[in-house]
């Protein structure tokens, strides 16, 4: 295979000059002429009927231009699953009742933010308080208050996955382990809060600037809620200050600004406060896990049973997918011949839970990898050895669910084995824990029920050889802009600098489903590659006239030189060919088109990436504090397109996942979030971060562009399990609930010491094996 001339090079991000100089414009930075500012009144009660809303005082406040309640909407409900009306359960402004503290009730537009905030205080809402329920295990009881009309036992969605004969297989196991786990919630905590500016014109058309992960979803869902044609809504996505799943479903910023602008014919801007961002957007799904794993004496897994209840919060949002994926990834990354999953997503009177980086998999991997280590210990098998014995290998079929093609897990485990063996001598109270994972490379979920291709791109070649690349892909900071431009340059045979990228405008760019499910590199990358190949083919037609190759020879372009593939020194300049081609096409610009939709690739994803992570911790037995000493990740993501971007994804994923493991939590009291700012909601900061090592494993994914696949989302999966295993290896205590706080560690140490004192000399607590 020939060397790549652009891929794999350590290039600067194509948008980084704008970002370091303060020029990059985010939605929150945009000011339009005659712009008004909007605010949203939110419910202070977790569950209540709206009896009456009096807006007269707010309307009378000087500077207030418009006050709207649910009566000012079309009364429709929205959701991402347009084919399933029962899952479209969220109103722009609630009309009859509120279901969580933060549910939007009214919205105001005024001359400035202070006036709008003042007006909110003057709106009088009479509520009839209803009994509320916060814990999904209580909400599922028959006597629990019903949160949505007609929804029995508050069960929003249930999912079942099964293959093999689980009950029979457990009979054949030498050792069966059962344990319960709990995973807490987590805030996306994007540095840029949700925001949008809507501008409705006298021509009846709407332009909206939105901080979003999917401009197309904004267009489609707004059209539905406002009863407009999709084409009359133009969505512009400026730079986005982080998404992580939180800017995938639409929120009140988009809907309310659009509603207000539709009344006022002026631009209306709504920027969430940090408190709203924490308490009234979406968040990671808390899950209650009951696991059962059965193995033979030699460590071969025979059966696994998984039962999960997830806290849904007040609405569906993207939560049904988290429920499915947590069940699917609970079998990962192992070959488990008999498997059964039952999951229930239950409505509660809390902030809705939805998509967040990893999308149900971090929960599955924390519980699953904890149990794998417990099994290895019981059977007296090395932690990496048991993973090697059961780990997925290339071309493995997950029965009835998915087809794995490339899989570098065995190589990752081998590399990690060597690394861990070198670090066996540790100081007291230090421990290394490992966890492995696998993740999808582009979700095959047509939530929105679109007839468009999942990804598409257009390549336009100008007379000076400069290339305009148009794609609907969304960069929220993860580096898609650079990665896609590199793929385009590589395929077309030009320099990265020759590409000018056009994204984030639904009226200019072809449809793409957005930035979620680790789909951009593989899906949009394929579309970009195909579009570039289409344009290249047109150029080579003209080059053939000049070079007159024997028909058996191929032509190609590399480093802006059009040449015989087998004789790269023979050829002509790319720039010359471009000029000839445009002249030959009667002056028409050369345009290449490409699109990609996975076909025949199972239900989940066209490809999967794998890895294993080792974390060393140092636990203070006096305070229960866990210090992260060092993290090493062996992973594979197919051909590496953008190395600096890939490393950045890995390092950032570890930061987010370690926070999830150790400190980030969204505890509530009676439905009210306790930590709704960065003082109380702690994140790991620069001094807390450990030394990072990356062991890159080579693989090639035939479904991906140039062999590339996912990197960055999957890496949020292994960390919590690795840290839990490391804490066990340091102190011999097994923490089964996230986050692993100092309180939990101290309590477990106390328990352990108590047991030690109670036990007779010959240790009766050892689990018998076989």
């Amino acid at each position: 295979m020939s060397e790549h001339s652009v891929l794999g090079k350590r290039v600067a991000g194509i948008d980084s000059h704008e970002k370091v100089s303060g020029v990059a414009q985010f939605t929150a930075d945009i000011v339009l002429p005659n712009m008004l500012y909007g605010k949203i009144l939110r419910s202070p009660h977790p569950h209540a009927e709206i009896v009456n809303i009096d807006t007269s005082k707010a309307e009378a406040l000087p500077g207030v231009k418009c006050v709207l309640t649910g009566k000012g909407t079309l009364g429709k409900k929205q959701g991402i699953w347009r084919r399933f009306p029962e899952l479209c359960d969220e109103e722009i402004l609630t009309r009859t009742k509120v279901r969580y503290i933060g549910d939007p009730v009214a919205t105001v537009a005024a001359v400035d933010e202070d006036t709008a905030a003042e007006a909110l205080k003057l709106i009088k809402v009479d509520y009839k308080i209803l009994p509320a329920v916060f814990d999904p295990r209580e909400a599922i009881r028959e006597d629990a208050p019903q949160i949505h009309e007609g929804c029995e036992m508050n069960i929003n969605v249930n999912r079942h996955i099964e293959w093999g004969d689980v009950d029979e297989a457990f009979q054949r196991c030498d050792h069966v382990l059962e344990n319960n786990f709990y995973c807490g919630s987590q805030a996306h905590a994007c540095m840029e809060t949700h925001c949008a500016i809507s501008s409705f014109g006298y021509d009846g058309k709407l332009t909206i600037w939105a901080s979003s992960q999917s401009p197309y979803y904004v267009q489609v869902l707004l059209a539905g809620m406002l009863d407009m044609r999709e084409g009359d809504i133009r969505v512009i996505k400026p730079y986005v200050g982080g998404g992580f799943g939180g800017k995938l479903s639409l929120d009140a910023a988009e809907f309310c600004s659009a509603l207000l602008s539709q009344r006022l014919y002026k631009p209306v801007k709504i920027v969430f406060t940090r408190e709203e961002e924490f308490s009234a957007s979406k968040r990671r799904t808390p899950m209650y896990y009951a696991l059962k794993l059965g193995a033979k004496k030699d460590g071969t897994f025979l059966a696994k049973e998984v039962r999960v209840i997830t806290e849904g919060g007040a609405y569906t949002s993207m939560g049904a997918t988290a429920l499915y994926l947590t069940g699917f990834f609970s079998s990962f990354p192992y070959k488990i011949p008999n498997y059964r999953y039952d999951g229930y997503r239950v409505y509660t009177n809390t902030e809705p839970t939805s998509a967040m980086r990893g999308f149900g998999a971090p929960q599955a991997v924390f519980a699953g990898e904890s149990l794998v280590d417990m099994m290895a210990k019981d059977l007296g098998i090395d932690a990496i050895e048991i993973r090697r014995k059961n780990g997925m290998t290339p071309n493995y079929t997950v029965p009835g669910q998915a087809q794995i093609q490339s899989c570098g897990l065995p190589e990752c485990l081998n590399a990690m084995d060597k690394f861990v063996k070198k670090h066996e001598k540790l100081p007291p109270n230090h421990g290394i824990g490992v966890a492995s994972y696998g993740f999808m490379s582009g979700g095959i979920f047509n939530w929105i029920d679109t007839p468009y291709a999942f990804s598409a791109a257009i390549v336009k070649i100008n007379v000076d050889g400069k290339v305009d690349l148009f794609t609907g892909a969304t960069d929220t900071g993860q580096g898609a802009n650079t990665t896609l431009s590199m793929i385009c340059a590589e395929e077309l045979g030009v320099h990265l600098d020759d590409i000018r990228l056009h994204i984030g405008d639904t009226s200019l760019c072809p449809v793409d489903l957005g930035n979620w499910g680790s789909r951009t590199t593989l899906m949009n990358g394929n579309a970009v590659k195909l579009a570039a190949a289409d344009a290249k083919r047109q150029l080579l037609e003209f080059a053939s006239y000049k070079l007159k190759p024997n028909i058996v020879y191929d032509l190609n372009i590399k480093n802006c030189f059009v040449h015989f593939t087998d004789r790269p020194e023979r050829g002509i300049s790319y720039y010359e060919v471009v000029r000839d081609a445009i002249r030959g096409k009667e002056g028409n610009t050369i345009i290449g088109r490409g699109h990609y939709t996975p076909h025949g690739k199972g239900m989940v994803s066209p490809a999967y990436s794998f890895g294993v992570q080792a974390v060393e911790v140092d636990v203070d037995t006096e305070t229960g504090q866990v210090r992260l000493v060092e993290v090493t990740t062996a992973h594979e993501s197919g051909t590496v397109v953008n190395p600096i971007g890939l490393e950045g994804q890995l390092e950032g994923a570890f930061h987010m996942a370690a926070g999830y493991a150790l400190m980030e939590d969204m505890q509530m009291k009676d439905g009210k979030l306790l930590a709704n700012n960065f003082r109380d909601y702690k994140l790991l900061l620069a001094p807390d971060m450990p030394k990072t090592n990356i062991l890159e494993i080579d693989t090639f994914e035939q479904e991906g562009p140039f062999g590339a696949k996912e990197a960055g989302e999957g890496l949020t999966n292994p960390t919590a399990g690795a840290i839990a295993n490391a804490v066990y290896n340091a102190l011999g205590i097994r923490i089964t609930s996230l986050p692993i706080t100092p309180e939990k560690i101290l309590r477990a140490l106390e328990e352990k010491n108590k047991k030690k004192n109670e036990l007779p000399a010959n240790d009766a607590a050892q689990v018998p094996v076989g």
Partner: protein
Amino acid sequence: MPRIIKLTVNDEQFQVIVEPAESLLDVLRLKLNKTGTKKGCNEGDCGACTVIMNGRPVNACLVLAVEADNSNILTIEGLANNAKLHPLQQAFIKYGGLQCGFCTPGVIMAAKALLDSNPYPTEEQIRKAIAGNVCRCTGYVKIVQSIHEAAKVMRGEATNE
């Protein structure tokens, strides 16, 4: 009662009418159109609004505009010398010290304040200097590396080319 204050921002002089409760951040962003300085929390917790005021890094959201009267402010827009980016900016580009870019201006200003007072920072000192800047994307690895490399360039030991 509104007041008139004088500010020097990036070597340019301004007179601004401000309300008593108005923050320096809102004056910079809304009245002077310096939107490179970001509002991440408006409570002094995230550091996205870090600017250098009279030589010291401050959270502009916590400084009242009236307190900043007669002061000298440097924002991200004033860091480059015409066509030449500051070594910190060059290093953040070269070593990938940013992803979404929202925290970046604040991080760079905090780093500038560090390197102005301590040209030879240890890794620990770099991490401490940006401990008030929340970044949700990078895990800080490449941020710390970028600051470390920029320090070398500023000391004349390396170039960013």
